[in-house]
């Protein structure tokens, strides 16, 4: 309850901050639309040549694209801004002020900054789903939507955990810009169904950097073809990732040496 109130006040602060920069808001919205268009383009081109790839039709693939857009919104709107702030705190030594507050430090840093207008992505992803189902000539069942939502929760938890682990690395290396850029580049591959990849790459994208779990599974759930076993596996994986992240974060805090006198 207390943490819900804290979350509300953190959101309020972020909202105030983003309203300080109205011009940024407009620019960001424009850039976002542009990126969305370029992101869909390769999909359109590829499916024009071959109607079905690795068992995915264009309509099916739009579900993956929809979840990718949604997750990108979560990443850019709720995860990345906060974590950029933590790295900044670590570099400047102002993490002191976070650690000295009587509330969970991981919670405080993870909710420090939101970019509310990224909610635009949610609307876009709904549009992509609608387009996809129109191509398929049917709609999703209520059960499938519920399953997809559950799969998405697992996806968000995994994404958050991976990002948090990257940030924990900042305690040891301080500059992690490259690491997070690399991660961003890899995350881009999540717009494709994982079945498109083969061999080692697919294994990596399923177990190491679980892109499959992030977009392919929720898409399959929405299409009504995700096995229960896979979903449970995804949930277990997400829970494990969260616990590991918590442990690594706690250890990192213990190692924290502060900066700048």
């Amino acid at each position, binding site marked *: 309850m*207390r943490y819900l*109130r*804290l979350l509300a*006040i*953190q959101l309020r*602060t972020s909202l*105030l*901050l983003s309203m*300080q*920069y109205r011009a940024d808001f407009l620019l960001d919205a424009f850039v976002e639309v542009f990126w969305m268009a370029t992101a869909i383009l390769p999909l359109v081109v590829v499916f024009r040549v071959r109607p079905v790839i690795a068992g995915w039709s264009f309509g099916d693939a739009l579900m993956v694209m929809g979840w990718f857009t949604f997750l990108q919104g979560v990443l850019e709107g709720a995860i990345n801004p906060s974590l950029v702030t933590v790295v900044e705190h670590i570099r*400047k*030594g*102002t993490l*002191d*002020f976070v*650690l*000295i*507050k*009587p*509330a969970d430090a991981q919670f*405080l840093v993870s909710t420090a900054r939101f970019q509310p207008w990224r909610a635009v992505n949610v609307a876009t992803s709904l549009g992509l789903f609608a387009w996809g189902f129109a191509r398929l000539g049917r709609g999703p069942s209520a059960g499938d939507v519920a399953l997809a939502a559950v799969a998405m929760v697992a996806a968000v938890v995994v994404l958050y955990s991976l990002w948090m682990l990257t940030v924990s690395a900042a305690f040891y290396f301080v500059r992690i810009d490259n690491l997070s850029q690399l991660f961003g580049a890899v995350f881009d591959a999540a717009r494709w169904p994982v079945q498109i990849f083969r061999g080692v790459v697919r294994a990596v994208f399923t177990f190491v950097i679980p892109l499959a779990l992030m977009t392919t599974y929720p898409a399959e759930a929405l299409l009504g073809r995700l096995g229960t076993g896979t979903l449970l596996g995804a949930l277990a994986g997400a829970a494990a990732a969260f616990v590991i992240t918590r442990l690594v974060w706690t250890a990192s805090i*213990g190692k*924290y*040496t*502060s900066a*700048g*006198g």
Partner: protein
Amino acid sequence: MIRVRALRKHYQVHERPPGVAGALRSLFHRTYKAVAAVDGIDFDIAASERVGFLGPNGAGKTTTLKVLSGLLHPTSGEVSVDGHEPRRRDDAFLQKIMLVLGQKQQLLWDLPPSDTFELNRAVYGVPRDEYAATLRELTELLELGDLVRKPARTLSLGERMKCELAAALIHRPKVLFLDEPTIGLDVSMQATVRGFVERYNQRYGATILLTSHYMEDVQRLCPRVIVIDKGKLVYDGALEALVARIRPDKRVVLRFTRPVDRADLADLGTVVRHGAGDTVLDVHKDAVNRVVTQALARLPVADLTVENPPLEEVMSELFARGHAEPSP
């Protein structure tokens, strides 16, 4: 209130030889050296005491404050603050303390300070009516006026420091660690901050441990000082006693109606300065009476004052002696 026993904090520091070759070598083979930032210090501070924490740069002052506030884990030793072990960082402990770092800021850069206050109110769970009362008092004591409604980035350094202090005290901490709270401030703003710290201490009975490079801060605020150098405790006691022990001399400042030969001053005391304006002599405190009488009788004195030697000089002398003289 605060109890420190045999506190040690060592850092592993990566060492590398200078130059490109050294840097290359250290990429593959690193050598580490343990640096003792704090090397076995003990002290106790009673509730509502104001203590100055002195030492040259790198003496371990900030490290000690960070250990006391739970940010750093001690390598060894025992630390307790109002019955809590700081490194556990439990909420009850964190509710009671605050660390103000003059060189870092917690105010949200793009928002008015009032939004940071509001955030802290929520984090510390301060009830609304209590918050309103505290804020009223802080606004009055610090003369904040409508500063709190301007974005922090538009405030001057001094204004920002006042708001930093207010943000740090929303939860009325019982223990206040101040690390260089007046750094970079102009003289009148320093005086404002000093006056505020004193009143906060008196009004709430808060325990205050303060580091500063401005001796004026320490002289005005702290009846007791703890001096550390190279991680070791050099002195703990009354400021006056420290001055008397290190520099038993008084400073006699003379102004003459006509020029006086330097040779005429030699038997009075050590001549620190002898110029057109004034003449400064260091005189042992027991000899002050005799010297003043002689000077008035023998020399064309227009004005005469007796002062303590500047604390800056006392400190640099203390640190120059190193550990030659153990504390009592």
